[in-house]
C-alpha cells in the first residue's frame, strides 16, 4: 500500500549538524535529503470515518453542518460556504454592497485572488502600499486612496497577522465605507480577542488544502455581519445563476479538521515562538513582528534579513536575500519567496481585459492606474529583504525538524564571508524584474 508515513525519524540536532561547511559549498545539509518532506494536511482516522459517515448523509446537511460549526467558531453572524476562497471574497464584496463601477481599496501585496474578486464583483481594485512592519494594508495609504466612488476597504490579514482593523474601521466610519476582510490566511487569528472573519461588515476566507483549516482540495466561506448583507449575497447568486456551492466531500473533510484546529493552532504558535527565539540571536534574521493585541495564525512565517547586523550592509539586500535563499534550500529548509512583484504589476492588471472589452475597468477609468513596482516602496522593500516558510510550521512537525530549521538559519547566518563571496560571484536581478509569480 502507498503510504506517506516517513521512512525514518528525523534525528535530533547535534553539533555535527551545524558545525561543518555550508551544504551549498559541499558540506552536509542540516536536514538530510530524504527527510525533507512535510506532510500536510494531516489525515487521521477521524477524517476518514467522518467522510464515510458523510457518504450516508444528505449533501446539503454535510455542507450546512460544516458551515454552521465554523461560523460559530469564528463568531460571525451569517455564513455561505463556497467552492473556493475567490468565490467567498466575491460574495463578501457583493454582500457588503459593492456594485459595478465602485472602487475597492486593496493592498498591493496579497494573493491575486483578492483583486480578482473585486473585478468579479464588477468593481475596480485600487491598490495601496503596505505597512513595512506588518506587511498588511497601510491605513494611511488607504486613507489617501479614498475617492467619492470608493465603496469598500478590503484589508488582507497577510500570512495570518490581522491588519490594523482599528485604524481601518475608523477610516471606513469617516467616509461611510464598508470593511471587507480577506481572511484567507487568518484562520483562528485574533484581533483584540475577536477571530478574523468576524471583524468587518463581511469577510471571505479560503479553505483550500494549503490553509490552516483545509477542506479536501478547494473551498471557501463568506461571512456577513448582518442579515441584509447575507441576503444580498444569496439573492445575487440566485439572480445571476452562479454556482458557487461547496462539495459535500470537501465539507466532510473540513468538519473533521475543524475539530483539531485549536490543537494545530497551538502547535504553530509554539513552533513560531521557538523559531523566533532562535532567529533573534543570529542577527541576520528577524522574526515576524506581532503587534500587541494581535494573535498571528502563522499560515506563513516571513523572515526579514538584516545584512547590516552581520557586516553586509554594503551589499544589495536583494542579492543577500537571494544567496541566503539558496543556502537555506541547500541545507534542507524549504524557504521561498511567496510573491515577487506587486499584484497590480501582474498581467491581468496590466492588461485589464477583465470580463472582456475592459469591463469593469471601463466603468470607472479614473480609478485605473498603470502601475510600476516603484509605486509601492514598502512592498518592494519587503520583497527584497524577506523569505517565507509555509507549511513547515503548520503541521505538527517533529520537534527535531523544527530544531533543525533553527540550526540551519544559524549555520547560514554564521557565514557572512560565504554570503559576500557568493553575492560577488553572482548576478541577481531584483525580484520584481522577473516574471510575476502567483505564489
Amino acid at each position, binding site marked *: *500500500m*502507498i*503510504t*506517506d508515513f516517513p521512512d525514518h525519524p528525523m534525528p535530533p540536532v547535534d553539533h555535527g549538524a551545524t558545525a561543518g561547511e555550508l551544504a551549498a559549498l559541499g558540506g552536509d545539509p542540516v536536514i538530510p535529503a530524504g527527510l525533507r518532506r512535510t506532510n*500536510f*494536511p494531516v*489525515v487521521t482516522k477521524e477524517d*476518514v470515518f467522518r*467522510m*464515510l459517515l458523510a*457518504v*450516508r448523509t444528505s*449533501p446539503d446537511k454535510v455542507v450546512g453542518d460544516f458551515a454552521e460549526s465554523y461560523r460559530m467558531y469564528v463568531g460571525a453572524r451569517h455564513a455561505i460556504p463556497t*467552492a*473556493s*476562497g*475567490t*468565490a467567498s471574497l*466575491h460574495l463578501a464584496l457583493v454582500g457588503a454592497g459593492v456594485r459595478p463601477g465602485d472602487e475597492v481599496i486593496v493592498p498591493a501585496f496579497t494573493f*491575486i*485572488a483578492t483583486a*480578482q474578486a473585486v*473585478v*468579479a464583483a464588477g468593481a475596480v481594485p485600487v491598490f495601496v502600499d503596505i505597512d513595512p512592519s506588518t506587511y498588511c494594508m497601510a491605513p494611511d495609504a488607504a486613507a489617501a486612496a479614498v475617492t467619492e466612488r470608493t465603496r469598500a476597504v478590503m484589508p488582507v490579514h497577510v500570512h495570518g497577522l490581522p491588519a490594523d482593523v482599528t485604524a481601518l474601521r475608523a477610516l471606513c466610519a469617516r467616509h461611510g465605507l464598508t470593511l471587507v476582510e480577506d481572511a484567507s490566511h487568518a484562520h483562528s487569528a485574533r484581533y483584540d480577542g475577536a477571530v478574523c472573519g468576524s471583524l468587518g461588515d463581511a469577510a471571505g476566507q479560503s479553505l*483550500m*488544502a*494549503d490553509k490552516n483549516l483545509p*477542506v*479536501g*482540495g*478547494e*473551498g*471557501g466561506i463568506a461571512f456577513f455581519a448582518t442579515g441584509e448583507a447575507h441576503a444580498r449575497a444569496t439573492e445575487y447568486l440566485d*439572480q*445571476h*445563476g*452562479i*454556482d*458557487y*456551492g461547496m*462539495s*459535500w*466531500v*470537501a465539507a466532510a*473533510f473540513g468538519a473533521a479538521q475543524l475539530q483539531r484546529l485549536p490543537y494545530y493552532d497551538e502547535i504553530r504558535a509554539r513552533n513560531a515562538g521557538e523559531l523566533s527565539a532562535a532567529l533573534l540571536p543570529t542577527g541576520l534574521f528577524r522574526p515576524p513582528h506581532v503587534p500587541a493585541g494581535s494573535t498571528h495564525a502563522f499560515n506563513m512565517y516571513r523572515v526579514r534579513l538584516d545584512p547590516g547586523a552581520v557586516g553586509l550592509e554594503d551589499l544589495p539586500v536583494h542579492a543577500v536575500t537571494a544567496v541566503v535563499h539558496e543556502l537555506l534550500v541547500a541545507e534542507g529548509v524549504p524557504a521561498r519567496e511567496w510573491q515577487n512583484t506587486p499584484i497590480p504589476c501582474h*498581467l*491581468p492588471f496590466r*492588461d*485589464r*481585459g*477583465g*470580463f*472582456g*472589452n475592459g*469591463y469593469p475597468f471601463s466603468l470607472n477609468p479614473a480609478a485605473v492606474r498603470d502601475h510600476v513596482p516603484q509605486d509601492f516602496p514598502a512592498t518592494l522593500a519587503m520583497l527584497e529583504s524577506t523569505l517565507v516558510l509555509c507549511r513547515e510550521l503548520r503541521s505538527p512537525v517533529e520537534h527535531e525538524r523544527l530544531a533543525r530549521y533553527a540550526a540551519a538559519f544559524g549555520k547560514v547566518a554564521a557565514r557572512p564571508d560565504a554570503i559576500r563571496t557568493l553575492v560577488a560571484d553572482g548576478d541577481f536581478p531584483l525580484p520584481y524584474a522577473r*516574471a*510575476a*509569480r*502567483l*505564489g
Partner: protein
Amino acid sequence: MDDFGTALVLTRVLTTGVLMSIEKNDRELPALGRLLRQATGRAYVNLVNSRSAGFHTSLVGQRVGHGDTIDQPDLDARQRAFVEWLGIAVRPGAGLGGRAFGFLAVGPDDVSTLRDRVGSLPPAPALVLDLTGLGFGPAAAVLTDDERAWARGERLTIFGSFDLRTMWTQREADAELVPGVQFNYRLSPLVAACLRIALSPATSRTDAPGAIS
C-alpha cells in the same frame, strides 16, 4: 457508484493521495481528464468546479466576453442569467454559426452511454458536461478539440494547469492568452477521484469501483 465504492475511493485518496489541489504531483485531475478524453473522443478537457464555471470556461475559450452576443438555444432561465451576468447577450436560436457550446447533464444512469449521448448532440466548438448529478458536489468538464480554446480556458482558473506547469509564473509570450478576470474554478482532487471511478464504465464496462490505481 454505490456507497461502498464511494467510501472506498474516498478512503484511498484520504490515506494515500494528494489532497493539495495545487500540487504538481496530483494524479487525480489528470486521470479524470484522460478518462473524459477517452470517453468522448475530444482532445482537450478543462475540469472545473460547477456547471456555471463550465459555461464561463467554454465561452472564454472561444474568446467570447463582455459585450458579445452568442446564439444558444435551450438555455433555461438560470443558465441564461449566468451568461448574461458575464455581459454576454443570448440569441435563443442556433444561428448561422451554430450554437456556442453543447451541454449535457450526466447522472449515474448516463455513464455507460456517455459516448453515444455525446455523439448525438448538435455540433458545437465546446461541450460542457455537468457532472454534478454523479453525486459528489458541483463539478463540470469542458471538452473541445481546439487547443487554444483549452489553453484560454485553463487561464481563467487561478491555479489552472498553466499555472502549475510554469510553477505559477504569470508570463505570456502570446498576448491572446493573457488572462483577464480569473476565478478559482479548480476542481478538488477528492471530487475528481470519485468522479473518475463513477465514470469508469464510460470507457470500460468491465471496470469495477474496486479497480483503484
